[in-house]
């Protein structure tokens, strides 16, 4: 159920998704050069291309997605990302959404439910990637956001606070990767040379989460 204090009047169902996907696509394309440079610096340079490919595939799901409930929509998104992106990020984001789809069956779409769903997604990335916070990956963006959601859910914060906290946690988490040594992903091969560069996956996760927060705040 989507009609509640947090998710807002207009976010009644998965019709929310197509415009959101379009907004994310626009934001990633806007930052394509920068993201590409990040993955070139300490990875192999393909992260943004992989993500754009995945988002393009999602954008073609429009009609299909809006006919699905949240659980099925997340599943569909996960399977689509998994079979179009490739790379480390494809398997991870794919797993995340499939797990979110599974969890969404058990949850209402309120702050607590969304928090639980998102946490299930993040946990599946940790499990699939055998990684945790502090390893210079997308998890350095994703986990702080999970923690902020969890604490806001506990405190039953109002929507503006929740969204502001998501953006702050994502941005701070993303930036924290800059000075880290990498112990997962391709950047780990570079040892000390990886320091001083932001992780590409952390940056795209942050961009995506900020777009989601902005879209939610408009609802």
């Amino acid at each position, binding site marked *: 159920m989507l009609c509640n204090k947090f998710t807002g009047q207009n976010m009644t169902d998965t019709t929310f998704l197509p415009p959101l996907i379009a907004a994310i696509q626009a934001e990633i394309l806007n930052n394509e050069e920068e993201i590409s440079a990040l993955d070139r610096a300490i990875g192999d340079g393909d992260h943004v291309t992989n993500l754009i490919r995945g988002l393009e595939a999602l954008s073609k799901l429009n009609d299909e997605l809006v006919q699905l409930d949240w659980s099925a929509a997340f599943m569909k998104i996960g399977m689509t990302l*998994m079979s179009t992106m490739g790379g480390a*990020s494809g398997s991870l984001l794919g797993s995340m959404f499939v797990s979110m789809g599974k969890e969404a069956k058990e949850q209402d779409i309120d702050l607590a439910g969304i928090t639980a769903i998102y946490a299930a997604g993040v946990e599946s990335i940790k499990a699939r990637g055998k990684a945790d916070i502090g390893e210079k990956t997308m998890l350095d963006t994703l986990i702080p956001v999970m923690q902020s959601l969890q604490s806001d859910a506990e405190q039953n914060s109002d929507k503006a606070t929740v969204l502001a906290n998501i953006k702050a946690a994502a941005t701070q988490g993303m930036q924290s990767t800059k000075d880290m040594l990498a112990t997962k992903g391709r950047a780990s091969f570079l040892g000390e040379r990886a320091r001083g560069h932001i992780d590409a996956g952390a940056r795209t996760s942050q961009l995506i989460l900020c777009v989601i927060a902005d879209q939610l705040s408009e609802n």
Partner: protein
Amino acid sequence: MKKLINSVESVLEESLNGFARAHSNIIQFNHQPNYVSRKNKSENKVALISGGGAGHEPLHTGLVGKGMLDAACPGQVFTSPTPDQMLMAAQAVENGAGVLFIVKNYAGDVMNFEIAAEMLDCPHETVLVNDDVSLPKDHSTGRRGVAGTLIVEKIVGAAAEAGADLATCKQLGDKVVNSTASMGVALTSCTVPALGQPTFDISDNEVEMGVGIHGERGREVMSLTTADELVQILAKAIDEDLKPAKEQCALLHINGFGATPLMELYLVYDSAAQFFEERGIKIVRSLVGNYTTSLDMAGCSITLTLMDDEMLQYWDAPVHTAALRWGI
């Protein structure tokens, strides 16, 4: 970016079409999901499947055929393939004796193959190739899989062809991996079509030492020096890792990254063979050429595999693929 392509979007598909057309006697190409599979497979043989990002050609598509792989799943350039490719390929080529996945150790490859394996409902095993000794053995993600992969595929491929069962193939694969060490040096970066520019900058008097095969930087930047000195660094790391006994037989593989002329690769072979022979190793087989490439990167890697009689016999067994062929 100067490439013989029509568009960044179509390069992979068109290249695979050309590959399929040129080798239609031995392989077929399935579109969506993309995989190359062997024609005329033997009955009741363990199915060998590998894959990885494109841009390493002839690896892996060029190694599909009698005596080697049953299927190869090419991802986008330098991007691991997606699980549906491996799953569909497995379902297409499996014929009762199970599936062996041969996977280079990269997060993306490992995870995507893992997901496919989880979905596959027939007996299966995975051999993880991690032959790159430019990283310490206890590296946080494990070592990368590089040019040694071909040797694993050849030897296990011959065993499977000879009727070895899944457990035996898996064990043999692990043995080859443990007997193999590689390390590479890059003189230039390479240009991924979708990026349109070299992945990294490097000055005219520098090399990247200890590189993987995705056009990424290596372990460290070093001054460009003589081939002999570069070979020393690579061969020493390999020697210290494998610690071969005197009189040990070995296969020496010099792998070009794509833009280095054969003339230089043979010069490197000479230098490396001398290095190992001075240490009492007997080089009994050689392979020199562009096999595990990084598009148009200049540079090469050295791979040494310590060989026992069984491995030698499987190495010599007939093979008929686009890139490796003998005895047939």
